[in-house]
């Protein structure tokens, strides 16, 4: 049972990291109606900036500055890139973000090279905090969890409780009306894009050293983030939150289950030949665990195209 708790905990931490990425993506989608393909690239930039800053002035300043730089960069890109392209419709925007993702990856390779960066967890947090069933739990994981949760509360506070939050909510659904009322909707868009990419940058700062900081990191996480927002429902923050946790937990707990299709049919009395361990029947759930999110997405699109909490069809 303790082990189960451990797996659950792991899943939640991973899920919260996913949420930091997907929250920005889903907000940007609901405002501009465009999927930002370059979103995970900002995650990567966050990690690289944090690494660079931490080699000079340490991890803690990097935790503040790297997301700010990424956010500002995002805002500038929205102001001078995306907004110009916006006039030419959604396809142009989509292509723009797609190109941006490739561009950022190449620039990162140009500056930092193809090899992983030695970006490591700060020594203050590099110890085991507690132990469950012989598995120790590092302080850094808990720190990641705390950062994600406080970010989440902060975001919720802004959107639900402040004036600017009200304007954002209104601009999401009725941009023309809000504009007519005298609010600068363009600036709200820029703000949301900046905050969204900044959040991705923050996820990069705390994820880059927990995992690996290398040029492929954006592509690796990019697909899974899309799965999250599609499962959660495009444009829905609550959906993104639930889907992040769900996918995080599914993916990590499935690893622990060594049950295959062959074992399943065996329980009802049909035995299959155990000749080839490589066939589909003998693949255990733990072997296919990393594929499950995609399976989940496909099933979701078939059964409920608008996702768990979505209001419009994908």
């Amino acid at each position: 049972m303790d082990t189960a708790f451990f797996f659950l905990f792991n899943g939640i931490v991973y899920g919260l990291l996913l949420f930091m990425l997907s929250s920005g993506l889903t907000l940007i989608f609901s405002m501009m109606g465009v999927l930002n393909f370059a979103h995970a690239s900002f995650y990567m930039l966050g990690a690289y900036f944090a690494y660079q800053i931490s080699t000079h002035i340490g991890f803690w300043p990097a935790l503040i500055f790297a997301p700010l730089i990424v956010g500002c960069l995002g805002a500038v890109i929205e102001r001078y890139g995306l907004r110009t392209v916006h006039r030419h419709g959604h396809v142009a925007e989509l292509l723009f973000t797609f190109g941006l993702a490739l561009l950022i990856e190449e620039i990162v390779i140009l500056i930092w090279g193809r090899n992983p960066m030695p970006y490591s967890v700060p020594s203050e947090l590099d110890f085991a905090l507690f132990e469950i069933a012989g598995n120790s739990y590092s302080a850094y994981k808990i720190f990641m969890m705390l950062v994600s949760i406080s970010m989440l509360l902060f975001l919720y506070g802004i959107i639900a409780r402040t004036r600017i939050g009200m304007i954002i909510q209104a601009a999401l659904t009725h941009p023309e009306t809000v504009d007519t009322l005298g609010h600068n909707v363009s600036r709200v868009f820029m703000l949301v894009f900046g905050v969204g990419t900044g959040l991705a940058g923050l996820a990069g700062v705390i994820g880059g050293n927990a995992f690996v900081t290398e040029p492929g990191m954006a592509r690796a996480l990019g697909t899974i983030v899309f799965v999250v927002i599609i499962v959660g429902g495009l444009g829905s923050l609550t959906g993104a939150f639930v889907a992040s946790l769900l996918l995080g937990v599914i993916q990590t707990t499935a690893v622990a289950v060594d049950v295959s299709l062959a074992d399943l049919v065996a329980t009802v009395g049909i035995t299959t030949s155990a000749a080839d361990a490589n066939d589909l029947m003998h693949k255990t759930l733990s072997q296919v665990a990393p594929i499950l999110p995609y399976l989940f997405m496909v099933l979701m699109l078939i059964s409920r195209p608008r996702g768990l909490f979505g209001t419009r069809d994908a």
Partner: protein
Amino acid sequence: MNRHIRCTGILTALALVGAPTALTAAETVRLAYIDPLSGGFANVGNNGLAHLRFLADRLNEAEALPDGMTYEVVPFDNKVNASESLIALQRAIDQGIRIVVQGNGSSVAHALVDAISKHNRRNPGEEVIHLNYASIDPALTNESCSFWHFGFDAHVDIKVAAIAEHLANRPDVTDVYLINQDYSFGRAVAAAAEAFLPEARPDINIVGSDFHPLIKVKDFSPYVAKIQTAGTDAVVTGNWGNDMSLLIKAGREGGLEAEWFTFYVGLLGGVSAIGEAGVGKVKQISEWHANVPNAEMDEIVTSFKAQYPDFDWYYYRLGTMMDMLTQAINDTGSTDPEDIAFALEGMRVDTPIGEAWMRPEDHQLFQTLFLATLSNDVTHDVENSGIGFVTDERIELDDTILPTTCEMQRPS
């Protein structure tokens, strides 16, 4: 880097088109280097290319080949993809190149072995020889062996057998966990471990064996939890790239005390990504590492670093390979692949750290192996990380020899 290489490749190709026959065979021995030079594994392929160019330059300077002949390395990008490799092979053959050097990806090696035997059967007198410096699926020198293929790296079974020999004298290790990538190479590692470990020490328990999809897993902590719960003393893994770095980092985070027996931790990027997490815990089985004391190699390590600051000297076996090739050309006075192949069979050469032997029955190279552990107190570190290898055990050539099932078809 990439573009540079591609340009050089195109220029070389143009130069060859310009002067079709005049300057072939007699003056230049051209080596087609077929490996990933773009895409996700470009750094690995470019590293090998830098090694090969460095060696070719040195041998040319030393006038190691007879009759004023020189080596030239012609790179072809295969993106570690079997069908791209076949196209590259055809391009090389069209340019009249008859010596192919390839390393990464056992699937690529298998594809090339098949294509080359087919080509050689159909084009007598225009045979191609395949020098493989890094694909280590045991099948390549066992059931799928070919007269035209030579394997210069110890294959999976040889490496795992060496690990098993080491564990035979380590009564403190009883519970071993296997975790590998879910494809032919990872499966070969797991199969070898399941065969050799209990044979070396009957009291060793294999407490678990996991396969995970290749380069798909971000968070290895659930796997680590499984390893931990199984009460593991040592983990054997063939993982490379991020699959290895992430696994070992997750192990450190989960407070896993077990030792890691790996194949590829010294390969580009591995040590940087793992960092301090690996010190004292992570071992590698390989034919050499930079801290094997040897003045001749120290010089190579330093001048290679000076010439190619992005890379560290890693492929010791490429040096052995080029020495053997050079000796074969000198012995026979011919650059014909068939003559070279017969000369390589059974060849013994003295390398800086010991003898190497190309077994005639299966064209598998046998050489001294080293089991080494990551340490932060070393003369030569890897990738300026301050971390490098120290030798635990040196395994002599004679102790690495395994039987083969190869039934070689030789040209009559």
